[in-house]
């Protein structure tokens, strides 16, 4: 695949993920401001997410969109502002994406399966 095609595909994926994230971040900010009103606690977070399939779906979409969006952005910065080779920037992008997916889904599943008082 030519460089131009790769760049175009990454551009499209970053914009698609940005559109999903725009909705997710608005919901996330509202939840944050609401959740901290009476002081943040593990019981509040686990109580909200645990066993709730709607939050499971929301955070799964959120994490997946982040895993697409953030690594492409980091790659763009590395490509434009450092001397790191194109191959290395792709490797960093892919690795960062996998780290976000692994850590993000570990957190999402951990919260979904956790129980208050444990």
């Amino acid at each position, binding site marked *: 695949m030519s460089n131009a095609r790769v760049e175009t595909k990454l551009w499209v994926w970053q914009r698609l993920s940005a559109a999903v994230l725009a909705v997710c*971040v608005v919901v996330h900010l509202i939840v*944050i401001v609401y959740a*901290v009103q009476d002081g*943040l606690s593990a019981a509040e977070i686990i109580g909200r997410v645990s066993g709730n399939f709607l939050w499971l779906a929301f955070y799964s979409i959120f994490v997946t969109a982040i895993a697409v969006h953030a*690594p492409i952005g980091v790659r763009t910065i590395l490509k434009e502002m450092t001397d790191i080779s194109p191959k290395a920037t792709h490797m960093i992008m892919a690795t960062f994406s996998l780290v976000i997916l692994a*850590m993000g889904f570990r957190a999402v599943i951990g919260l979904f399966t*956790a129980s208050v008082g444990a």
Partner: protein
Amino acid sequence: MKLSGHRNHAHYWAFVLHRVSGLLLAIFLPAHFYVLGLAIQGEAAMDGFIRWTDAPLVKAAEVILIILLAAHLTGGLRLMALEFFGSRESSKTAVAIGAGISLAVGLAFLINVV
């Protein structure tokens, strides 16, 4: 401070803010997921960390992170509006609106968290 050329421009600073906020949020993500993943070890483990975040300096950092997230959101929406609709006429106003919304979200968080 007197700046010349392209740096003396709202769009330039919006670009810088979008880059810096994106990079800082990307760096923050693994730590955020690590803390949320403490739920696997149970409520007590997670609460132990949350108590640490009660420190004023951590709270201040949280407010900055919230503002950065809101700024990245509004900056990204502005960028996509420019790319897809091409209108530049009101984009300077969009920078100001984005900055205002970001600070308002940060203030809403600050009022509720303190």
